[in-house]
């Protein structure tokens, strides 16, 4: 069953130096599965994720032949209806909780905001649900975290708060944009397994954006490899380490290996032909 189907997505930016194309005709579809998008910086993976939510800031512009989400074409929805989808139906976890949480609002207020404002839930009930959401991401003293400000949390805690906040309304689609890249390596695995468990339990569709190929291979069902705004290869996650495309192979080769030789890593081979 298809949850999301994107056809020929393009994201362009009108700048003074001319039109920059960040995404150039990307198509993919997603069921209730975990789709990884990998690629180097600037390959358009973040823009692809944000386009689905239609949250590209001007001067950026989104165009697509079709962007079907649960039968509705997102390209044709008025902003009002799009806003009604954001939160309850589709959500996003961003890279660094240091920037993605509002620094001057208490964590509790941010967690309860959707419930209080959109669903008009009473204070006590919203509080209970927010605490339960914090418990679901394995935060031990949720009452204290509710009263804390974002700068009082560690990165791992912040990202768990972020995940809890996005999962409160039980969305059908979650976009995770480098959710562990800003975290210490020691807490990456923990946050990832929490995210994995929740996504599995609730049967959501997940778009997992990362530059870490091994992580994606382990964590996702299917992988899109992006290069210069295009998808150069699409493959099952278990086949990623045996990728055919020279760009994907290049991405793999520039990862250091434990126990590998300590010589210089090969540079990434970039061939403009692949992005045609």
């Amino acid at each position, binding site marked *: 069953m298809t949850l999301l189907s994107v056809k020929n997505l393009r994201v362009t930016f009108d700048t003074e130096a001319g039109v920059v194309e960040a995404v150039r005709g990307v198509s993919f579809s997603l069921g209730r599965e975990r789709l990884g998008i990998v690629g180097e910086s600037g390959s358009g993976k973040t823009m692809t994720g944000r386009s689905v939510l239609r949250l590209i800031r001007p001067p950026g512009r989104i165009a697509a032949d079709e962007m079907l989400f649960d039968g509705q074409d997102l390209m044709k929805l008025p902003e009002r209806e799009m806003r009604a989808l954001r939160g309850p139906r589709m959500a996003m976890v*961003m890279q660094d909780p240091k920037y993605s949480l*509002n*620094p001057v609002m208490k964590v509790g207020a941010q967690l309860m905001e959707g419930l209080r404002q959109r669903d008009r839930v009473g204070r006590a009930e919203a509080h209970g649900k927010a605490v339960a959401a914090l418990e679901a991401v394995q935060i031990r003293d949720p009452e204290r975290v509710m009263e804390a400000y974002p700068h009082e949390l560690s990165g791992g805690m912040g990202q768990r708060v972020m995940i809890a906040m996005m999962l409160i309304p039980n969305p059908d689609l979650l976009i995770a944009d480098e959710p562990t890249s800003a975290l210490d390596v020691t807490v990456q695995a923990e946050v990832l397994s929490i995210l994995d468990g929740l996504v599995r339990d609730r049967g959501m569709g997940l778009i997992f954006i990362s530059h870490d190929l091994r992580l994606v291979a382990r964590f996702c069902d299917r992988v899109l490899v992006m290069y210069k705004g295009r998808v150069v290869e699409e493959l099952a996650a278990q086949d990623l380490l045996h990728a055919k495309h020279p760009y994907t192979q290049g991405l793999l080769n520039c990862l250091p290996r434990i126990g590998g030789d300590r010589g210089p890593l090969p540079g990434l081979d970039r061939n403009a032909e692949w992005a045609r």
Partner: protein
Amino acid sequence: MTASPSASLRLGAYLRAAGSMLISLAATILGLLLVTFIIGRVVPIDPVLAIVGERATEAQIEAARVALGLDLPLWRQFLIYAWDALHGDLGQSIRTGQPVIEAVARHFPATLELATLATILGVIAGVPAGVLAATRPGSLADHVVRLVGLMGYSMPVFWLGLIGLLLFYGILGWVGGPGRLDAVFDMMYEFEVTPVSGMILIDTALAGRWDMWVNAISHIILPAGLLGYVSMAYISRMTRSFMMNELSQEYITTARVKGMPEWRVIWVHAMRNVLVPLITVIALSYAYLLEGSVLTETIFAWPGLGSYITDALMVNDMPAVLGGTVVVGVAFVLLNLFSDLLYRLVDPRAR
């Protein structure tokens, strides 16, 4: 059990911050007194001659010197000056022989009233204008706000004031003329209204004299509107740039991802962060107005601190000038302290 240690930790940090603030407050005020004291000694105006006149005898001059304490060593003079100032004694005006503090207490409320109303108007107009411009950069609204702001920056206040008086008072007759009240009400105010704050709008309201209140409004609205326009120009530009900066932050995207409506994204999520630097901007512009805008007070015959100090300066009445300066300085320092406290209230990271 988890809340109490962190709560007491926060209280301790807050008290420590308050303590260091008080120390810096005391140091600043002492420094202010030192500066005014030194100015009083270095200006080429002999306070003795100013009192006794040019034809005094040697003995008279010497007697006046001793009476003023000018025969004492400088450091003792300063200590006496500072001690008196801290007890509300700013010396006697040479012009009137009356205590400076009494004259300042009469003039400062007029300036305070004008500056406060102007700042309120500047904030009411400037913040929404800045937000409007920031949320639609490059739009017609943005250009209008920029142009109006630029005019506020660059038009001389005295010119705007004169044109305003000519148009709204002279030709249209919509507002009251110079002064704080019509002459009729001036007398009535003097005798029938108990002065509580010295601010006419507050005192007449407390006394229930709404006829007088309306008249006072008609007098203050033009100068306050004018100064408010200048402060609006500044506040709208700063609001625009702060707001644009906040709107590009990632937490704004988070709020949108949560499906929050645009008004909430701007006025709740972004505005709370804009407030942090904006408080300083508003306090600065308020402080600037509290110094008493001499030109505006002169044009509108506003008996404020600015015109008091200027008049005193014209007749070499140094105790009055320096006393007024100390009061302005203290107001400035207190306003800074207040904005600092407010800042801590708004920004949890500063606590």
